[in-house]
């Protein structure tokens, strides 16, 4: 594409198929403790 550069191939919709295993880290256990930062957590299946 001439006018667009897309940074990612994975989409949220794709994660509906698998996902939801719940093995990933709880967000407040990482560093925050005072804010909610779910989006920067890592998927346990992709480690």
């Amino acid at each position, binding site marked *: 594409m001439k006018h667009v550069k897309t940074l*990612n191939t994975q989409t949220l919709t794709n994660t509906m198929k698998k996902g939801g295993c719940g093995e*990933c880290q*709880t967000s*407040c256990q*990482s560093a925050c403790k005072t*804010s909610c930062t779910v989006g*920067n957590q890592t998927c346990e299946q992709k480690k």
Partner: protein
Amino acid sequence: MIHQYRNNGYNIVLDVNSGAVHVVDELCYDVIAHLAAGEEPDEAALDRPETLEGLLAALKDRYKEEEIREALEDVKELTREGRLFTRDVFEPMIDQVKQRKTVVKALCLHIAHDCNLACKYCFAEEGEYHGRRALMSYEVGKKALDFLIVSSGNRRNLEVDFFGGEPLMNWQVVKDLVAYGREQEKIHNKHFRFTVTTNGVLLNDEIQDFINKEMDNVVLSLDGRKEINDNMRPFRNGKGSYDLIVPKFQKLADSRNQERYYVRGTFTRNNLDFSNDVLHFADLGFKQMSIEPVVGDESDPYAIREEDIPKICEEYDRLAKIMIEREKEGKGFNFFHFMIDLEGGPCVSKRLSGCGSGTEYLAVTPWGDLYPCHQFVGQEEFLMGNVDEGITRPEIADEFRGCSVYSKDKCRDCFAKFYCSGGCMANAYNFHGTIHEAYDIGCEMQRKRVECAIMMKAALADASDER
């Protein structure tokens, strides 16, 4: 739903519902903005002749017709692929996600309601959480771990954070509980991930070795520059803590190969130039860091106010730009709030379920009482049960479970909803008296951080292309 913004010379389009991120040229940015005005188009609408006609009429003074046609074809392709103007298919799932049976998988153990510092902004009120000083006994801690194992269903990875107050003031119990956990995990086919949050005052070689052997992550509390840290994080006698703590933290971070830790600070309205504190951490040699906005009552002189937001946003912009340069120079570091994984981030189910407080994540007081999270400890209306009887007030868990980005009006139309997952419920409660709200100042900052984090990905992808 899309979100368009310009930052550091990049034109960025975030397709909220797919999570796709596009860096586009000026023309395409304007084409998408024009198409998105009013109701966002679907594939059929993009194919209609009047769509092209409308675009040409609006943009032909600035761009050539042929280029506008080309850009529209790019937009159509992205839309066909489900990467632009994607519809929200998650909302119908929300009841299913929120009503599913949850298990408890993480505990925040308040191992010591006592502290050897007297930080002015402490939500734990110098460790005491609106109550008395107390240390958790080994017996209570054991029951907490047993409760976690029993309540965790098929979940294998269990997280236990030793928190306070200052957990190193009750270190023997921490060590004993880790030993107990290691013994129990074999019996029950579980895996404990222990973490500890400490101010470092009592840190020594023996404790460091134990942390490195047993703790998946360690959070080291420090606010940045000496004068900033010592103003807010003094000892009880008023003396600053920086000189004692920094060398210990540097040694610990090095001993962990600069991994699996965060040096974590709090910024207040006393240091709205907090990017300098982040850079100070980097200059001290730290590679993993976080500096977060203070949580406090609006009446506190150090609390963040609405009027501070523009300055805070400038700071995030400045920090993002400097971090890109440092990365290019091979001197990069991680800033927790700019971490974003566009490819391997959490699944949508996780993003819809939020932080898990009150359901998957609970806090345990030194007496064994259970609360939805560490920030609710001491607020009796949120007392959920105890380690002897388990959850005795399941209606509290139900209320937390029912809270999502779709139950809050402010979240519904926010582009950052799948990154913060509705935000911190304790913050919402503190500012609005209900968890079904959003802490507006926090939302402003969160949106800015997401924008900066995405821009950094664009800039670093560029740098990588250049190499």
